[in-house]
């Protein structure tokens, strides 16, 4: 169950190419438009408090 959840999150996050079995959001689906819209909206809400990435000074 947890493994499936992890795989689904990786797929939603772009880290996995193929959707796990029983996961209905396929690559060609228009739902991706909504998902990207939601991500962009959330980024817009939270951006602006900009701090640098921790590892950049290394």
């Amino acid at each position, binding site marked *: 169950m947890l493994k499936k959840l992890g795989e689904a999150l990786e797929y*939603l*996050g772009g*880290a996995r*190419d193929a959707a796990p079995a029983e996961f209905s959001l396929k690559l060609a689906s228009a739902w*991706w438009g909504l*998902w990207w819209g939601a991500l962009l909206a959330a980024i817009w809400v939270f951006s602006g408090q900009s701090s640098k*990435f921790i590892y950049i000074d*290394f």
Partner: protein
Amino acid sequence: MIFNTAEYFLFFLLPAAILCRLVAPKARPWIIITFGILFFVYFSYYYLGGIVGAFCIAIFIWESIFSRLYKPGSALCWIGVLQALLVLVIFKYWNFLTGLIFGSQNPLAWNGAFLPLGVSFFTFEFIHYAVDRYKGKAERGAFGEYMAFILFFPTMVAGPIKRFQDFTPKLANPSTNWALDWNRGWTRILCGLLKKFAVADLLTSFTDNLTAEKIPHAHRWILPVWLLAYGIKIYFDFSAYSDIAIGSARLFGIGVPENFDWPYIRRNIAEFWNHWHISLYRWLVDYVFIPLGGSRVAPPRILGNILITMLVSGIWHGAGINFLVWGLWHGCLLIIHRLWSTAHQTGKIKFQIPGFISWALTFIAVNAGWSFFCMDMATARLFWRHLFGYA
């Protein structure tokens, strides 16, 4: 900074990724080189080192030329390693090392010290190439291929640390599935940005309290919460960075190594290190641990090799005693884990730690270790004293 700026996407990533896919294969490295140089000069000039920082592009040009001399078994490869280390020592450790010798009245202090963009990462790629050429593990490659390897801007600043022999075939034959690459690449970039803005940056309001001024006035039970916030923040911050780097490379059709694989759910410290900053850990294993003898020496020396490798990891993370202590902490944890595993394998210990307890111990140990990473030694000492009621 950089990956969360509009200019990164508009002036560098989009044009470079599109051009790279449109031009003939022979021109591809030169597109990467051109944009890599522009990227380094632009961001160095505006963020790190100003005009002098921008001139550090000369390091890449020199490395590209000098690396042409490498041959299997040649001493020139070791000169290449030494000059990469010299760059790191001069820019990153000069004030730290001379300060250890001369103390606070350091006559050799470099007051205008700055770090060239990505110095810790590109020097590790230089060392990898020199060592692998010496051992005959990496082909020479064309001049343009090597320059494209070291100037591939999505991974130039903070990794993932690449290997030349993995990168060049992908550069020569990148994925041509635009639809899949751009879907996966952009999704990964957007998720990375969200992790950075919505989690890592938000936790700054907690982690900013980990200072010598604020710790003494805090209730001691809030201190672990702040430290835990730092543990979560550094994971989300660096994995977000890696997501954006890997997603950006994907837009070019080029796959680069993964850096994180759910490290905080791991049940022991060895597993943790196999899933945290993976490209660095593998570099350390290949270029520090194995050359020291790795696991093929007497047991006490194996433990010594583990400790030295983690001390190198510690000092690589920053020029300070606290980073050495952080490396020492993880070295000790890995040694304890190895002793425990060996005792288990030989049947000396039969007791099995339940999975949840094992996970909790690993999680607590890793997060306790962050105290030496995010605070200098005096502040970390104050933190622990106050937490246990001694301050």
